[in-house]
């Protein structure tokens, strides 16, 4: 029996695009492309470990930008941020379709690979958009705004860009406690670092009073005659509530 081929990479975007380079170069047809941390032992699988190579990464990156589009590159990056197990193969198929159809590839919705990729991209973008609203900062004693999140997908880098424009004149940290990552912003630039917070946080004196004002507002803005918890949960699934001040987070 012929074994199924699975490519392994180091989990980085550069590593993933290096794999794409190798697939094209070797004319392989792998069953999946996964980070080597996610390896599952199996008798029928042959694993091929690919070393991340910045030159090969750049070649793929540039030719996508040139032959397809910059937006397409952004879509691929969004899909890469998803937690979907077969995202590697979805990206490979999407890039293949991109080289075939060119810059309007996302309009070829009749193609199953394009559809699958669009769906996954949509999921990541929806979660990102949700978090633009659902992040709650608390003012620490040191004058730094601090927020915790636990997103389904690894969207922290997408959030950094938004808040660096909006809160340009503040110090802030957005902490993904599920993945142990955080964005730090120092009024000039933002960076992503792995981060664990083991200490106890202390807040500015008036932090609690603003939280109380917000909770009060939240309660009083709802119209009792129109109560509709199902609709509320539809828009704002309960898994997000843990970090919302107004829901006791």
């Amino acid at each position, binding site marked *: 029996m012929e074994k199924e081929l699975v490519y392994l990479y180091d989990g980085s975007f550069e590593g993933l695009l290096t794999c794409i380079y190798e697939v094209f170069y070797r004319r392989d047809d792998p069953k999946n492309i996964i980070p080597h941390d996610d390896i599952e032992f199996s008798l029928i699988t042959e694993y091929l470990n690919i070393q991340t190579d910045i030159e090969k990464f750049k070649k793929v990156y540039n030719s996508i930008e040139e032959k397809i589009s910059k937006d397409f590159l952004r879509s691929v990056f969004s899909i890469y941020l998803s937690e979907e197990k077969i995202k590697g193969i979805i990206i490979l198929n999407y890039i293949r379709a991109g080289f075939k159809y060119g810059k309007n590839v996302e*309009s*070829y*919705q*009749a193609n199953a690979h394009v*559809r699958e990729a669009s769906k996954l991209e949509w999921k990541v973008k*929806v979660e990102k*958009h*949700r978090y*633009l*609203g*659902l*992040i*709650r*900062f*608390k*003012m620490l004693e040191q004058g730094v*705004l601090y*927020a915790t999140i636990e997103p389904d997908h690894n969207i922290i880098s997408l959030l950094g860009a938004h808040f660096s*424009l*909006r*809160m*340009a*004149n*503040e110090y802030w940290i957005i902490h993904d406690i599920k993945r142990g990552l955080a964005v730090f912003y120092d009024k000039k630039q933002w960076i992503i670092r792995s981060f664990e917070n083991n200490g106890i946080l202390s807040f500015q004196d008036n932090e609690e009073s*603003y939280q*109380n*004002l*917000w909770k*009060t*507002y*939240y309660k*009083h*803005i*709802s*119209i*009792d*005659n*129109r*109560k*509709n*918890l*199902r*609709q*509320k949960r*539809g*828009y*704002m699934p309960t898994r997000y509530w843990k970090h*919302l*001040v*107004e829901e006791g987070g």
Partner: protein
Amino acid sequence: MDVLNKLQILADAAKYDVSCSSSGSNRSNKKGGLGNAEAAGICHSWSDDGRCISLLKILMSNYCIYDCAYCINRISNDLPRATFTPDEIVDITINFYKRNYIEGLFLSSAVVKSPNYTMEMFLKVVKKLREEENFNGYIHIKAIPGADKKIIDSVGRYVDRMSVNIELPTDEGLKMLAPDKNYKDILNPMGEIKNEILKYKDERRVFKNVPKYVPAGQTTQLIVGATRDSDYKIINLAQNLYKGYELKRVYYSAFIPVSKNPLLPRYEAPPLLRENRLYQADWLLRFYGFRAEELLDENNQNFDLLLDPKCDWALRNIQYFPLEVNKADYKMLLRIPGIGVKSALRIISSRRFGKVSYEDLKKMGVVLKRAKYFITCDGKYSGIKSMDSGLIKKSIIGMDENLYSQQLSLFDLNGGILGGERISISV
């Protein structure tokens, strides 16, 4: 009275205004400033009634000199009253914004002392926010009917959106329930704001540094069910407002009894389904190329509560159907029940590469359980045997016994999130 108590009273007083959208403006942050506005709008939370919270929606004051029967803040109503100072409003807005609770401020007010006095107070708030605090988030202000053009203009230079609430769709309704208001006072500022928007737009074409004037446009709100006005009158008015005053949105608010005034109708519950039908019709006017007089007419003045307005139209015009999805043009595709703007565009773009199959339609997001009665796909018809509108109607309504609840869940999640609007509806 402390700020917390005031906030309770003045949030309670503001909640019946449905508009909360923060969309339509792309104001960018300035150096050393706080905030920007996202064109698509962002929802920050959802309250227990399922409505999106995007802006801090409060009244500046609920001490009103008017006595409108439908309004909770009328002078004759016995309820706790409060007034924020401009500083208090600015402080809450800035601190809520920094914590990412809100997208900006939506400030309205009862008419305190006089329309001009009330607008002067608004001006103090927006000036302080923009000039002293360097706040560049979203600001929506209510223009108070009867205020001078000059003061409305000054406020307009600082805000993203302005709105004047019409509330009651006819002058007779206003005379009966809101004796202090009249149509002229409401429509005048609307016309003036529209003209100023156009003037500033023209000037910006020549001079880049002309400030923006109400970049997100103006909106209004109509109360549904406080008077006997028909749906036909309401959507006709909406159509005129979109055309004549270039409004961005007309909001419809199911009347919630806040008073026992004998002039007002009694309801067990607010007429939410009727409100939903009006929103669906509003969508048809704005995005589907329908005209109000196609949807309703003198003999047919109210929407069928059992059918959405588009289905209702299709059944009354059954001679146009079934349409072949591989041939119909975009305009006609939009008129097929179960096909929305997105799926119509998808059909058009994928027809370039080959025939669209019944299976494809499903994948493109067409609601086939509705569309199947009105289409053929590659010549094949999958509805019921005859094109009799009565039979089709029966079949559509009988499809789901929980039609009432199903209709209310038509609120489209995706539109809600990405549109940044309170609701969007797939028709």
